[in-house]
């Protein structure tokens, strides 16, 4: 599905009686994402990247302008949009099985059916043996993969990822990133992923949007001409480096 922003901006109002003015967090911002695109958003901290994800996910209403999903204004969360955050947000009292099955459970799908779906998904995430483990018993990478599984069973047409691998160590991070690429290559969702890692953005994305300092505006729109499928080997070639350099320059100039 296509995603688009039309002149969108978010201003956080000053609390009543506060001595500071309203805080413009984002925009005005306009861009469009083709169906099936993998786009990364980078920018200095505090530039409204997370706000952008929340607005696109329907969790927050913009102050001005609109976010559109296939031409329809996003005004509330939709089951066609899958959201994932840096925090895995797994429920500690549910097993991996029941955590991953949550979207199906909330949609009213019977227990047998949802367990069947989840058991089909878990092996691909390396979690086949951990269906009955609790999140507290998992490593960081496993927990993040369980969170990814929960988004995937929802079969969303759009994935919004807010620094999903930010809490993982570098090695695990690369692995989970490649897992994500594999999933995307199969299902072809439209992906918008916020990250603060330039190499990660170049490795994963077709297109990198660089946001400026607060309030975040579009500072650069950089295409990544690396062929698919991508591997970690791509990180050592010239095109990769040139791209990473361009992104860094855009952030520093932003």
């Amino acid at each position, binding site marked *: 599905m296509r995603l688009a922003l039309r002149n969108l901006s978010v201003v956080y109002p000053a609390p009543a009686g506060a001595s500071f003015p309203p805080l413009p967090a984002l925009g005005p911002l306009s861009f469009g994402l083709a169906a099936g695109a993998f786009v990364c958003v980078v920018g200095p901290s505090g530039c409204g990247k997370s706000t952008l994800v929340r607005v696109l996910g*329907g*969790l927050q209403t913009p102050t001005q302008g609109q976010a559109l999903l296939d031409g329809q204004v996003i005004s509330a969360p939709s089951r066609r949009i899958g959201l994932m955050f840096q925090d895995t947000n797994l429920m*500690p009292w549910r097993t991996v099985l029941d955590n991953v099955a949550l*979207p199906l459970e*909330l949609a009213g799908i019977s227990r047998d059916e949802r367990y069947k779906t989840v058991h089909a998904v878990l092996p691909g995430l390396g979690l086949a043996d951990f269906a009955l483990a*609790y999140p*507290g018993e998992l490593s960081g990478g496993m927990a993040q993969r369980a969170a990814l599984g929960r988004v995937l069973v929802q079969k969303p047409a759009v994935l919004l990822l807010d620094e999903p691998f930010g809490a993982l160590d570098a090695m695990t991070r690369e692995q989970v990133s490649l897992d994500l690429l594999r999933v995307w290559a199969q299902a072809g969702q439209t992906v918008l992923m916020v990250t603060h890692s330039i190499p990660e953005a170049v490795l994963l994305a077709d297109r990198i949007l660089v946001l400026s300092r607060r309030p975040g505006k579009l500072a650069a729109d950089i295409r990544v001409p690396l062929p698919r499928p991508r591997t970690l080997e791509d990180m050592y070639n010239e095109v990769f480096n040139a791209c990473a350099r361009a992104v860094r320059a855009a952030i520093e100039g932003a």
Partner: protein
Amino acid sequence: MRISAPYDLKNQTPRPRSVQKMWRRDALRRAAPLLTLLLVLAVWQLVTLLQIYPALIIPAPLTVLEKFIEVVSDGRLWPHLQATLVAVLAALAFGSFAGLVLGYLIAKSPLLENLLSPLIIAFQATPIVAYAPLLVIWFGSGPESKIVTATLIVFFPMLMNTIVGIRSVPPGLRDVMRALRASRWQMFAKLEVPAAMPLLIGGLKMSATLAVIGAVVGEFIAARAGLGYLINAARTAFDTPLVIVAVLTLTALALTLYSLVGLLARYALAWQRRAQRGQ
């Protein structure tokens, strides 16, 4: 307590000395509460043997045991235990239910909190014994007055823990539920209740022991039956052994209730124990 060996007994060859030491330490730990009890009984027996105080003030342990057997076999203890137990259970049910419902509403509505918090704080700051007589005036000396007294004392920890529990639901989990278009009921049953469960159980644990206190306070002030009433009656009759029997029965009652809530916690919070072991 379970014996938990820090190594896998099947797959490793343990060093015999340390194992023996560990078993000894473990046995000691498990026997420790029993040793304390025996020590207390021994000192008690010694004090009565040396006749430091007259038997009217400190009767011998055996005298108390005899009294216990007497009041159990002639059926005098049972109606009092039953009266207190009924009051305690009724108060636990009413008080914790009211605390849960009102706590949830307050956690959700700042307006309601502003309206009710002065009343709640004032109520909680006042010692229960101070307004218990008032409750007797209003509700009479039957079971109602002590049920009301115990209900009020049960209500507050449940209320407070519910408010804190519901408010401490992680916002990230709320976002997940909202993003999945969870209904209000799903939000409540699948997120808020399980997320608040550790605090709800904590509130119930406090309430269980407080309910016994509340019931006995009620019975002290005015009652026609109950262990609190029995203590008062035995004291005026200078029947010290019976006073001690009644007190120990109350102890047993409170401990049983506390253990039952503990069992409930083991079941409801099994995930917590699993997760702690995993880390």
